[in-house]
């Protein structure tokens, strides 16, 4: 079956939903396609109060921002296909979608759209150590999903590997769920996430193991995790003998950063650049979030890994740009809205934690990324 829409948005997370809202509310015919049973992407697992500017959701919990976005999406008139997976993007702006119908059957649909936004998010990086494939070793975001979205305990005693904001936040959220966090292991000589996040788990008595790495995970007779061993790192970042420490844990979380998911953009020939500070290879975009292929946009973590606040603003920027190019918004009004969003994005990228991302984003927009 061929379905025609003005705008197709792949991924109903923070970027996809804000883009859909901006485009649909001025009359664009928008279809959001999401492979999950519920839209909202990773917002619903973010149960903490957001940072940022008070004028834009700071102090509000991510899950509540998610609920508001779902309401606004519904009010905007955008159409949503859930449990529906985009499996390919082909010439002529055609998407192949495995759509789950109301009766639960799966049908293959082709969606053709004038404008396509790829907002498929990111995936957690892994680190490889002896035993990392044992059930019970998982991404920090995975544990966070299990606890905060599914409300189940992925384990009772945990070790966190990585002290970036994800590692710190998920450690805190594990404590809130009643999981004992025995330590946070970090290869660098200092904690890499926000101090206020680290201070919270310090007050709860969680120790940090800086200049350490995990070297071993061990399974019990059921084949699932029962023990993990860490070791100190020497000057060459290799584990030092006789520094091993073992922990009885049934959960090891890996928080080693994220990388953009952009296979669909890549398949369509969108120009990519290698930008380590935004997660490595990623599709490049202009100041309207449009790629080098006219009509194909990217936003959120797909366009470089940051956080939900920036994803939502990039989504808005893409949505407004799409509406403008469909002549649904007067240029002057569109430009004014976009300028406000760009200023806000810049302020979210200020300070020592954001400046490398800010510089990278500026290089991308000014087309200074080496290809």
């Amino acid at each position, binding site marked *: 079956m061929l379905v025609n829409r003005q705008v197709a948005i792949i991924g109903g997370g923070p970027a996809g939903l804000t883009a859909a809202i901006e485009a649909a509310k001025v009359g664009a015919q928008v279809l959001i396609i999401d492979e999950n*049973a519920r839209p909202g992407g990773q917002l619903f697992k973010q149960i903490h109060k957001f940072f940022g500017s008070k004028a834009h959701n700071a102090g509000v919990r991510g899950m509540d921002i998610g609920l508001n976005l779902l309401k606004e999406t519904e009010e905007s008139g955008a159409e949503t296909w859930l449990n529906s997976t985009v499996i390919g993007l082909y010439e002529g702006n055609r998407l192949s979608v495995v759509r789950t119908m109301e009766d639960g059957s799966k049908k293959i649909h082709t969606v053709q759209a004038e404008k396509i936004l790829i907002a498929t998010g990111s995936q957690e990086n892994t680190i490889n150590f002896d035993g990392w494939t044992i059930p019970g070793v998982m991404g920090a975001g995975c544990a*966070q999903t*299990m606890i905060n979205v599914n409300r189940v*305990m992925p384990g009772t005693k945990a070790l966190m590997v990585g002290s970036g904001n994800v590692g710190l936040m998920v450690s805190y959220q594990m404590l809130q769920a009643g999981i004992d966090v025995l330590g946070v292991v970090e290869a660098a000589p200092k904690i890499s996430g926000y101090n206020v996040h680290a201070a919270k788990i310090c007050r709860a008595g969680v120790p940090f193991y800086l200049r350490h790495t995990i070297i071993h995970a061990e399974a019990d007779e059921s084949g699932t995790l029962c023990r993990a061993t860490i070791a100190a790192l020497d000057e060459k970042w290799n584990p030092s003998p006789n520094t091993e420490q073992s922990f009885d844990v049934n959960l090891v979380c890996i928080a080693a950063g994220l990388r953009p998911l952009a296979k669909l953009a890549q398949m369509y020939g969108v120009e990519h650049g290698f930008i380590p500070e935004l997660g490595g290879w990623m599709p490049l975009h202009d100041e309207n979030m449009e790629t080098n292929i006219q009509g194909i946009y990217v936003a959120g973590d797909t366009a470089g890994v940051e956080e939900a606040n920036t994803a939502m603003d990039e989504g808005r920027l893409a949505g407004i740009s799409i509406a403008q190019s469909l002549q649904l918004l007067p240029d002057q009004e569109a430009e004014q809205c976009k300028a406000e969003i760009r200023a806000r994005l810049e302020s979210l990228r200020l300070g020592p934690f954001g400046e490398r991302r800010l510089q990278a984003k500026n290089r991308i927009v000014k087309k200074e990324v080496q290809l």
Partner: protein
Amino acid sequence: MYITDHPILGAEENTEMVNITVDGVPLRVRKGSMIAAALLANGIKVNRYTLKHHEPRGVFCGIGQCTDCVMIVNGQPNVRTCITPVEENMVIMTQNKD
């Protein structure tokens, strides 16, 4: 184990359950939860065994990307259980168990 009360999420409101079987064993699990989560809540951490070395695997990314949690659901193999909700009378099998 389900998290019945939580400082931020509050007390669990959705207590409706559905019946499933996992490798023939009947389980009552929370309606609407993802298969992998419903299994974790019941202490089941192994979703499949690998083909080459027959090693156990469980949820790893939790968001449908890594495909390590695939199981046989109602006869269909390779179903990503972390993003597939449980349904009444679902028949779930550990993939490549034997």
